[in-house]
């Protein structure tokens, strides 16, 4: 896939194949068990192929990933998205791609996904609130999509928007944030092979509370950058406004790279606690760029990260 060969990571650098296969078998078991517990329609396997970008860490269970969410369109409680996201209609789904692209237009979900190889990317996920998870996402590289629509010279940023549909997303009737939820990336961040458009997890279509049908995942940034239920992607030459930065620029920067050395003004970012460890789970040190330093540090060379937080 795009950018793959620019990266010096190698399959064998990450995991010996035997260990990898072993882990996948374990995981498939865990996933099936979790799904068995959560009653629901039998979902189609997406058939995602493994990726060398996946971490070796133990993924959180399906139940954990789908019951503890920040998706303020459905309320500010961690359990609200699981409770209310059911109301969201995700079929049909259209994503408008516009701005500095060769092929602007309204793309249906099927248009977007057709021809893409879905990969399983097991990524660490670090929320700005100092909790974390490990999630087996399914998706394709954003770079593949951008290359397909043709990024024009001069484009420097990619802007994203979440659906606004207060009839289905009840909390949008309240001014918790300025809707629509907006996010953005610098073009080189967007083109990095770690950056994916995720359409599922645990080899199942994306649960609604996790941002169905299609969301961004940028694993080295705080979770709020990984915008959910995307309906618009725009290529621009100016840094786009982003929701949390608009609300409180002193607390949330445009970059929002995971960085244990730059605290949120109201709490420390030095440590985090992985969800699912029970009442006696200990915090662990947060890693620079959430552990993806080798892959992304070069994007920020020469930048003062305490200023561009």
């Amino acid at each position, binding site marked *: 896939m795009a950018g793959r060969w620019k990266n010096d990571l190698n399959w064998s650098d990450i995991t010996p194949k035997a260990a990898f296969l072993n882990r996948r078998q374990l995981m498939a078991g865990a996933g099936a068990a979790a799904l068995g517990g959560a009653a629901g329609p039998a979902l189609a396997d997406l058939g995602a192929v493994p990726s060398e970008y996946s971490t070796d860490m133990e993924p959180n269970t399906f139940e954990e990933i789908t019951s503890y969410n920040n998706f303020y369109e459905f309320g500010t409680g961690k359990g609200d998205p699981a409770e209310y996201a059911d109301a969201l209609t995700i079929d049909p789904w259209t994503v408008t791609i516009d701005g500095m692209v060769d092929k602007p237009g309204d793309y249906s979900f099927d248009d977007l996904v057709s021809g893409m190889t879905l990969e399983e990317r097991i990524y660490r996920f670090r929320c700005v609130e100092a909790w974390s998870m490990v999630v087996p996402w399914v998706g394709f590289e954003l770079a593949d999509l951008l290359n397909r629509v043709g990024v024009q010279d001069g484009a420097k940023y990619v802007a994203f928007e979440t659906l606004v549909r207060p009839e289905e997303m009840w909390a949008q009737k309240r001014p918790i944030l300025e809707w629509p939820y907006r996010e953005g990336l610098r073009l080189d961040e967007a083109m990095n092979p770690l950056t994916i458009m995720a359409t599922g997890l645990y080899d199942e279509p994306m649960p609604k509370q996790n941002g169905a049908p299609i969301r961004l995942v940028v694993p080295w940034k705080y979770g709020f950058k990984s915008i959910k239920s995307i309906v618009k992607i725009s290529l621009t030459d100016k840094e786009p406004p982003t929701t949390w930065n608009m609300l409180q620029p002193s607390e949330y920067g445009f970059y929002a790279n995971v960085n244990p050395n730059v605290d949120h003004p109201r709490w*420390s970012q030095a*440590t985090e606690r992985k969800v*699912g460890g029970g*009442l006696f789970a200990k915090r662990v040190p947060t890693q620079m760029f959430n552990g993806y330093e080798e892959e992304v540090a070069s994007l920020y060379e020469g930048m003062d990260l305490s200023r561009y937080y």
Partner: protein
Amino acid sequence: MTLTDRVNAAIRAVPPWCLYVVAPVPAAWWLYLGLTGGLGVEPIKALEHELGEFALQLLILGLAVTPLRQHLRINLMKHRRAIGVIAFFYVFLHLLAWLLLDMRGLWSQILADIVKRPYITIGMAGFALLIPLALTSNNLSVRKLGPAWRKLHKLVYPAVLLGGLHYIWLVKGLQFEPLLYMAAIVGLLLLRWVPQRRRAMARA
């Protein structure tokens, strides 16, 4: 017998020690839920939230005792001490949940947070103000301190305000719940002031 009379009779029928006996029940229940998966997948945060929110509710109930008597003739005076002491107990448990579960063992981060994080500093200040009140919530202290006791216990006003501010400060985005709590606190404090003013004007 009016409804108010009946309510007051029911309140009088409850001996204060009953409140102390049932006070630990919610805490024990949440702890049990936390240990058995009933508080969700992040039980530490959930426990911290339950304890903090209940503490704030009890503090607000304590503030409501006087206005309830003055404006609705509902008399909770007999239980005011128990309400206050139990509220303190829950603030303390809330602090313990933070120290022993949330920040377990990270002493340098704990100290840094207390001085550097405004919402923690404010919460700590609220807790600190409540300590002398809890220590003097007994008949001996009331007798010994005399009029100074009443003055000392006015500290509950800033303590509850700090608790409410702590909640507003820690949430992300514009959320209504903490603002509602703050509105209740401010409202209850203002209610104390209103009738006094009326009386003062009547005298003039």
